[in-house]
């Protein structure tokens, strides 16, 4: 017997960066919102305190903060001629879970797109020809907005996170020590860049001597005591060395918990439900509108949460999975190129030194 909960304006599926930021905006506008998170609540002092967060075996090799593949995993194949098999244990491809999602275990590399990244199709076609965007089955597209449209939002999120870095271009003026090729910024980073350890300092020296423009990477690892616009206090990074795949017990890494969640939780029109796994997006009989989601709690109780707005804010593959289970959209067919659900999936692509 499915229980029906009182209707809310917005329901979020998964409670990481996306849901916490959107919920803060929408609840701030007066909407009521419920976030459903499949795993447990966790916060900095009880889940990865400084007294035990520097544990390579537990977090890196035993995958303590990642999706527990014992119970739920994906299948993988390199192309459609292979048989997809279970992704049995986490490797380089990391699936997050729990309150804060992958925002808990991320490294803190806090890049903006370059203006050309946002116009990847037209920029590369103009510069390198059509084969660079349509050869080898490529499906590169432009985003429907420009870098300048996004700039204020980038700046706002960097301020929320207390990002450490050195600007290379402030309103068109090139700044020494920053990235001279970046899109123009409305201001300097909220905090100065991290100090360089030995290896990158050697790289920077060699690159400078060769006439290149090395610059410190923008990082959501905080370099001085910082209080963000929502009143969240963050601590100075101690360079302990345990960032990616680990939680930061020192409040030095921007996570949902250290930046936005405390303020969000205090809003009376927001509720977080943990151990609640969404099974399906429900729709009107004509299929055109979402009416809410059905989820199951840890007692096995099925619950319908009606909402005017359904936000799929889990990891992208989980969002796609849920859309397919719910009969939403047309699945992407790599042979015909038709369908958009699951199209153009890519894991993070980044090169750094």
């Amino acid at each position, binding site marked *: 017997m499915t229980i029906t909960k009182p209707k809310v304006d917005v329901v979020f599926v998964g409670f990481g960066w996306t849901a916490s930021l959107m919920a803060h905006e929408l609840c701030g506008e007066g909407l009521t919102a419920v976030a459903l998170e499949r795993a447990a609540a966790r916060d900095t002092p009880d*889940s990865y305190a400084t007294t035990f967060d520097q544990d390579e075996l537990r977090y890196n090799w035993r995958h303590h903060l990642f999706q527990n593949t014992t119970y739920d995993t994906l299948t993988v194949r390199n192309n459609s001629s292979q048989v997809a098999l279970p992704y049995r244990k986490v490797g380089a491809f990391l699936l997050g879970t729990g309150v804060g999602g992958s925002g808990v275990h991320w490294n803190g590399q806090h890049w903006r797109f370059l203006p050309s990244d946002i116009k990847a199709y037209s920029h590369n076609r103009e510069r390198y020809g059509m084969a660079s965007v349509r050869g080898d089955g490529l499906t590169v597209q432009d985003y429907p907005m420009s870098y300048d449209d996004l700039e204020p939002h980038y700046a706002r999120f960097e301020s929320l996170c207390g990002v450490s870095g050195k600007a290379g271009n402030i309103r068109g003026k090139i700044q020494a020590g920053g990235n001279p090729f970046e899109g123009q910024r409305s201001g300097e980073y909220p905090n100065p860049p991290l100090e*360089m350890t030995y290896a990158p300092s050697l790289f920077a020296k060699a690159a400078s001597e060769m006439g290149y423009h090395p610059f410190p990477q923008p990082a959501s690892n905080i370099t001085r005591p910082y209080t963000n616009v929502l009143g969240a206090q963050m601590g100075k990074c101690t*360079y*302990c060395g345990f960032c990616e795949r680990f939680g930061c017990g020192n409040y030095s890494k921007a996570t949902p918990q250290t930046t936005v969640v405390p303020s969000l939780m205090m809003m009376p029109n927001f509720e977080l439900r943990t151990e609640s796994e969404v099974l399906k997006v429900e729709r009107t009989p004509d299929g055109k509108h979402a009416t809410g989601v059905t989820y199951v709690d840890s007692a096995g109780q099925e619950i319908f949460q009606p909402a005017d707005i359904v936000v799929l804010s889990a990891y992208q593959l989980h969002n796609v999975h849920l859309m397919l289970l719910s009969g939403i959209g047309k699945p992407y067919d790599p042979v015909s190129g038709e369908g958009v659900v699951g199209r153009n999936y890519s894991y993070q692509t980044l090169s750094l030194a």
Partner: protein
Amino acid sequence: MSDADKKAGRLPRGGSGVDIALSRRSILLGGGILGTGAIAGAFEHHDGMLGGPSESLKGSLPYMDGATDVPRDGTSPDLRFLTAAEKAFVVAAADRIIPADASGPSASEADVPVFIDRQLASSFGQGQHLYTGGPWPNGLPQQGYQSRFTPAALYRYIIPVIEARVARAYGGKSFASVGPDVQTEILKEMEAGQFSDDPYNAKAFFVMFLQNVKEGYFADPIYGGNKDMAAWRMIGFPGAHYDYSDWVSRHGERVPFPPVSLRGRPGWDA
């Protein structure tokens, strides 16, 4: 439901070892698949599995003093998995992978077999964070581990297979008694997928065993290996210091501190 009711009705979020042992997760999931010795350390909170109570949270994320998610799994000296015969194999094979030399102790001198024993008895051995459901075709190399065995089951299955083969070929001797050259030869066959009695599982075991030996040698001593932090001293790793701020810009200088372990820090009570 009031906040007070919620607090009263909520099961302990971690806490003492007793709380963990009696948690619903152990009861729901642990009873059927774990030996009694393993339960206390096997399941931890916050590790991304369903099974805790659903909570409706408003006001703040919950925090219960003294209920932190400290490392217990695999840290208890009471955990035991390996039989005497299995242990003899593990000692001999681990010492082929890391023999003693002038630079540092052997795997067994660093208590790597103790580490492996505890790991196999705890959640790693029992297959936490490892999907073991079907299907079980061997798969392509790039599809990774596809065995249906949990790590503990793989150790338990493959060691007798190896020992039977050794006994057949070497007049009834055990792996531990055939000497380093033969041991190395057998391990090489396993690594190359040429161990004819079961090449697939022998190779899967070798890959896992190699990793476990390295883990036991270099992981924090709270897990039973890296005795006296000898492996960290060997490579000059000062351990998990809280604060390196004063050292980050002193490029190329040796950090003179002796290594530190998580052991003894506040909050770690195993």
